[in-house]
């Protein structure tokens, strides 16, 4: 009996410490979101609008009906991918600002596969087209990885520059060699994809969203259940220890960037095949950059990224309704999003407000002289 109660006690303790850990993980992002919404309300009030009406309209436009909810999920889907892309690189200590560029190549490649490959059965066509986009993103992601691994060039700089390369190349292709010529079109865009390449919706829910969930689970599994994930996380936490342990640090950096690019490319692919139906510059603007916000809001954890992406997706989905019903410029949602990013990175401000002390252990790492 004694053993039994001791066991129960153990379980209770580990459960409460698990809850505590969960709370510490979500407290800051949650507070950041609430704070941003609050400040958003103040801004709305200052500009003469009724914040309650505005937010009510925003919620109506994003969750108010099945259709609205479907729209939210459709907006969230590419964001989950770009969030995963940024977070995955982050685990290896890499800051992939280039998700945007990788996503553009993914979107273009999938669109091209979507209209060029003829006579494939739908399921196969979609699979091939998605893979084409993901691989395009992966190849483009590999470049900063290789540069980092062999020359030490900061991936932050190279990915920023490569974004411009991506924007210009994809623009050129969509406005030049692969421009849609149907019906005297003059807009820069590729031809419409074939029906066999379309990613459908089940009811209002886009199938791409389910794919995003599955990929999130795979990413989580890879990072925490496989030896490759162990290598990636070790390189991210301590490249020196990784080398000591016999891990191939350079290889891991490249591999991580390839996978990160793969994920971003997939996001672009789903956008082309599921939403836009072709490649058209402009439709993908900012999706990769939003990935940074989402990765940070989601604490770079796959299961944090999903709700973060849905939140941002909802703001995008509801923005027009808000503008229409409450007469508020929809750019206010961008402001709120920026505030969220600000507060989630300004971790300390939030902790002060919440008065949650960091765990004692987080504050200083005990060590001996010269052992750092």
């Amino acid at each position, binding site marked *: 009996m004694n053993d039994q109660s001791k066991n129960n006690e153990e379980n209770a303790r580990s459960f409460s*410490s698990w809850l505590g850990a969960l709370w510490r993980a979500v407290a800051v992002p949650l507070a950041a979101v609430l704070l941003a919404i609050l400040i958003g309300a103040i801004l709305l009030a200052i500009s003469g609008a009724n914040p309650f009406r505005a937010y009510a309209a925003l919620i109506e436009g994003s969750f108010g009906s099945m259709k609205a909810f479907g729209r939210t999920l459709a907006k969230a889907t590419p964001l989950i991918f770009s969030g995963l892309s940024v977070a995955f690189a982050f685990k290896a200590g890499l800051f992939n600002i280039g998700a945007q560029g990788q996503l553009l190549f993914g979107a273009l490649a999938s669109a091209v596969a979507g209209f060029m490959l003829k006579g494939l059965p739908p399921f196969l066509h979609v699979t091939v087209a998605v893979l084409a986009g993901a691989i395009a993103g992966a190849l483009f992601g590999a470049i900063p990885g290789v540069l980092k691994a062999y020359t030490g060039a900061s991936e932050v700089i190279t990915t920023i520059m490569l974004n411009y390369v991506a924007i210009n190349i994809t623009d050129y292709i969509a406005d030049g060699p692969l421009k849609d010529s149907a019906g005297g079109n003059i807009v820069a865009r590729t031809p419409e994809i074939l029906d066999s390449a379309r990613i459908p919706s089940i009811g209002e829910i886009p199938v791409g969203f389910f794919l995003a969930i599955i990929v999130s689970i795979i990413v989580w599994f890879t990072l925490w*259940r*496989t*030896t*490759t994930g*162990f290598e990636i996380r*070790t390189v991210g*936490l*301590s490249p*020196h*220890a990784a*080398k*000591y*342990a*016999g*891990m*191939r640090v350079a290889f891991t950096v490249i591999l991580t960037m390839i996978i990160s690019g793969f994920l971003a490319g997939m996001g672009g692919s789903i956008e082309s095949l599921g939403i836009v139906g072709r490649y058209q510059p402009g439709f993908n603007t900012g999706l990769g950059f939003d990935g940074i916000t989402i990765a940070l809001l989601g604490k770079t954890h796959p299961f944090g990224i999903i709700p973060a992406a849905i939140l941002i997706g909802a703001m995008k989905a509801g923005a027009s309704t808000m503008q229409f019903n409450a007469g508020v410029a929809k750019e206010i949602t961008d402001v709120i999003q920026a505030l969220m990013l600000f507060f989630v990175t300004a971790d300390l401000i939030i902790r002060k407000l919440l008065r949650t002390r960091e765990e*004692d*252990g987080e*504050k*200083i*790492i*005990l*060590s*001996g*002289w*010269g*052992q*750092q």
Partner: protein
Amino acid sequence: MTEENLALEIRHVTKRFPGVLANDDVSFTLRKGEIHALLGENGAGKTTLMNVVYGLYTQDEGEFLIDNNVVEINGPSDAINYGIGMVHQHFMLVPVFSVTENMILGSEVTKGTSLDLRRARREILEISEAHGLEVDPDAIVENIPVGVQQRVEILKALYRKANILVLDEPTAVLTPQEAEDLFRVMRALTEKGVSIIFITHKLKEVLNVADRITVMRRGKVVGHTSPHETDQKGLAAMMVGREVLLEVKKAPAKPGDVVLEVANLTIEGERGLEVVKDISFEVRAGEILGIAGVQGNGQTELVEAITGLRSIDAGEIVLMGKKVPFENPRYLVENGMGHVPEDRHKHGLVLPYNLADNFVLCTYYQKPFAGQMLMRNHQAVFENAVGLIKRFDVRAPGADVPASTLSGGNQQKVIVGREFSRPLKVLVANQPTRGLDVGSIEYIHKEIVKMRDEGVGVVVISAEIDEILSLADRIAIMYRGKIVTTVDAKDATREQLGLWMAGVQPEAA
């Protein structure tokens, strides 16, 4: 009690961490102008107690008195206001800042809105002269030796008018000469009325400089003594709670075949200077080669080259008769080399990882820790950890706590446990007992000798002459990148080794 002249009094302090009672009803007094040594096993709670005093942790129970008044300390800034200065177990300096900039960080002197660096510089020079602590106020911290960096830390405390100084293991990485300098400074400070709490694992030092000694074990104060009441043996017993063998017991070595051969190794350092110059030696199965030398004479680079962490510029390394590919630690892991690295936080551990993952840092991909399709086997990883924690007596609440929460000595045991539990042919141990308590040193020395007796070829690199003398069968002395001579341990004396390490040329024999 109150008629005593106390600078600081700690009353009944208790501090808990999840699963650990780090300080258990600890009381402690510090008299004005004394050096009070705080001794105790690894994980006894010394650093924790000092962090509580310094306001980095909040105690669960207990109170502090400064100059006989109860005070609230809610953070380091309170502690500094009460005149407490702390030199941490690890550096807290900004490497790219100058000495002056580091010194004023957090208490900047300003002129209008801009920093008054010139005034700060002058004040620092004054303090450093007053206390005989020489530093160049314009030097960049990362370019100055460890001993001087530490001086900067002490000056920083004095600059903030500290009259209670906490030194947490200040001598762990100092050369014997630097340590002597430090003791001189400490004595001078006490003469000016500063009170010092001195934490160390080196019993000789304690007997040398302390006025009083307090010993902790498992979170509790277990005794008080003073240098003229006790000796090293007595202190060791008090710390560990049993007799400790300060000398290693070992039978004569039975050297077998050569297992590791280093031939004409040359390494260029960062600035193009040769830090290792044409070094050759061999290690046989069943013997311990000790490499003695003052820090910074090329030992770090030599070991990094042998263990695959660094490329070399000339020469070769042969392990078990096969030439070793350079910079390939994985090859070495798989061919029987174990490595206890010098820098346990940089190379030896991934601090945020739990103990279980740290125990398989080098073998995570091998059976049974990984199965089909790159899948990790968490159960096997945890079982391994539980076994090693028990076998190597690691004091930790469980296999799932982050390595960062362990005391320094227990972190070292994790590394030793990981390396020693693999099938080894050669073991390279660099400063294997740095920062460890006498009990742990005894234990690790015993394990190293056991490895030797099982036929492993061992290389021990240490700056401690005593450690080399008691462990090694043969001793090589390194000075300025060269092995100046190699002697049989039986023929070596402390004095002779000390001279060679200091650069005195051996007689041509």
